[in-house]
């Protein structure tokens, strides 16, 4: 019995190992191609590793970093992601605490609207949202976070509400009796308790924001050169005439490197965050 189980475990391990190689391979393929010379990157030859003849060293990376507006796009992506995530975490946790603790018709109505906004597809609002953003002068990387706060609020408020419900209300009452006003209570008592949730929500929102394509594509004013990395990569491909494949592969790799580094260091939090998000969802 025990032996049968062990041998079966070994078979499963082997299958999983093969699968994980298949899972990593696409990324590895891009890495291999990013070291090839421009002319050796062909449609049918994507699986070949760079050889001594086709090896290009770091040329593609150098070119991607210097010529294609990559660093600007990277900076804008970073600014948008960080500002929006911070804003979403602070504002939505406050809002969620309020609508959970105050039992009134408008709390329920707000909660319903937030849940609705999670299901509504972006195409429903894309045209009107981009023209609203344009009119309110929110179409640059430093103010787009307000749009993101509005459009990303649904998921965040929903998750925070779920967790606030599990905080014993006595803790908050005690702090109010001791003379804290609601703002102090929130920041000194509730927020520290919510810390694990803040991390979970922060991770989910970061994953969404960093990779979001259509919203910034429509909202940001591209005539002023505002771009994020996904827009830049799509722009490369759709660009007129010949696409320079080498720098293209290198920019994809440069986009993946920070993600992979963050993932290696925070994978426990990320995986926990996803699981926690799903339980409350």
């Amino acid at each position, binding site marked *: 019995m025990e032996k049968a189980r062990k041998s079966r475990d070994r078979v499963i391990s082997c299958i999983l190992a093969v699968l994980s190689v298949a899972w990593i391979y696409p990324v590895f393929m891009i890495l291999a191609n990013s070291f090839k010379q421009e002319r050796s990157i062909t449609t049918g030859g*994507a699986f070949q590793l760079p050889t001594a003849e086709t090896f290009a060293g770091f040329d593609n990376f150098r070119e991607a970093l210097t010529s294609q507006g990559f660093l600007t796009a990277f900076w804008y992506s970073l600014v948008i992601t960080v500002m929006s995530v911070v804003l979403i975490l602070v*504002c939505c946790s406050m809002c969620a605490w309020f609508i959970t603790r105050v039992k009134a018709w408008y709390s329920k109505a707000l909660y319903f609207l937030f849940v609705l906004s999670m299901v509504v597809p972006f195409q429903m609002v894309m045209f009107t949202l981009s023209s609203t953003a344009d009119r309110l002068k929110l179409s640059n990387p430093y103010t787009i976070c307000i749009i993101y*706060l509005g459009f990303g609020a649904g998921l965040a408020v929903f998750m925070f509400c779920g967790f606030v419900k599990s905080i014993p209300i006595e803790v908050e*009452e005690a702090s109010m009796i001791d003379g804290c006003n609601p703002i102090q209570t929130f920041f000194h008592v509730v927020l520290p308790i919510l810390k694990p949730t803040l991390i979970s929500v922060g991770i989910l929102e970061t994953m969404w924001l960093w990779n979001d394509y259509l919203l910034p594509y429509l909202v940001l004013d591209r005539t002023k050169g505002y771009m994020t990395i996904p827009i830049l990569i799509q722009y490369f*491909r759709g660009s007129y005439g010949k696409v320079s494949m080498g720098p293209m592969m290198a920019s994809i790799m440069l986009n993946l490197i920070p993600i992979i580094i963050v993932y290696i260091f925070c994978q426990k939090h990320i995986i926990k965050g996803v699981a926690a998000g799903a339980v409350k969802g």
Partner: protein
Amino acid sequence: MEKTIKKFWPVFVIPTFAAFCIGFIWPFLQGLYLSFCRFTTINKATWTGVQNYLFTFTDSSFLHAFWFTALFTIVSTVCINLAAFAIALALTRNIKGTNIFRSVFFMPNLIGGIVLGYIWNILLNCVLTLLGKPLLSLHAPYGFIGLVILMCWQQIGYMMIIYIAGIQSIPTDYLEAARIDGASERQILWKIKIPNVMPSITICLFLSLTNGFKLFDQNLALTGGDPSHSTEMLALNIYNTFYARSGPQWKGYGQAKAVLFCILVIVISLVQLRATRSKEVQQ
């Protein structure tokens, strides 16, 4: 205490609510209104009633996109959930390297749709060239299969995490009691594990259905709707109606399609949630 909190409503609610109005409520209402109009910009809209909707029902590209999306969603939902559940079962057996496998399978979720689509475009085109078959953007069935493979590659890891959390939360006494009573592995799977992870199944079905229907980035980057709009999904079809056509009538049509799309997604999620929630057991 509630009364004191209530007095502070401007601090707590106004920032989020104001942004929510700008980012969701106002565009949503305006979008609803504009779906009954003919317009090129928001200020130049004339009321035309249900004309846009009538056009939408006769637009063959939209109907094609609907069937394509529906088929894609069904196929990808089934594949993703079966595979994710199988992997989750394998990863809860305490075999060596569980953590590494879990990390590897989850990795694609961190990569954005545009980049994923592009990576798979290169990979699949290479495979097709080596096999001497037409490229992805020239043959619609390959585009469909490509999208399914891409979606599986991305989503299996995410669903797997949810299933693992579900399986791990089953109280071990249940499993032990069943083993002592002489239940076989298969009986444990069907009679204990599956009923107890029903909440996870609900979530995963919900996520994969809505993700499938709303898919845009991957579709744009992998096939871009080629050949001649035949691999266009609903979201991309709406986008193209808005931005790839010239003429004063198209934006109205696009908005009407978007409203229908929105209703469709809401109805599907409600039906699905109701259907699987009723199968959940209380622990």
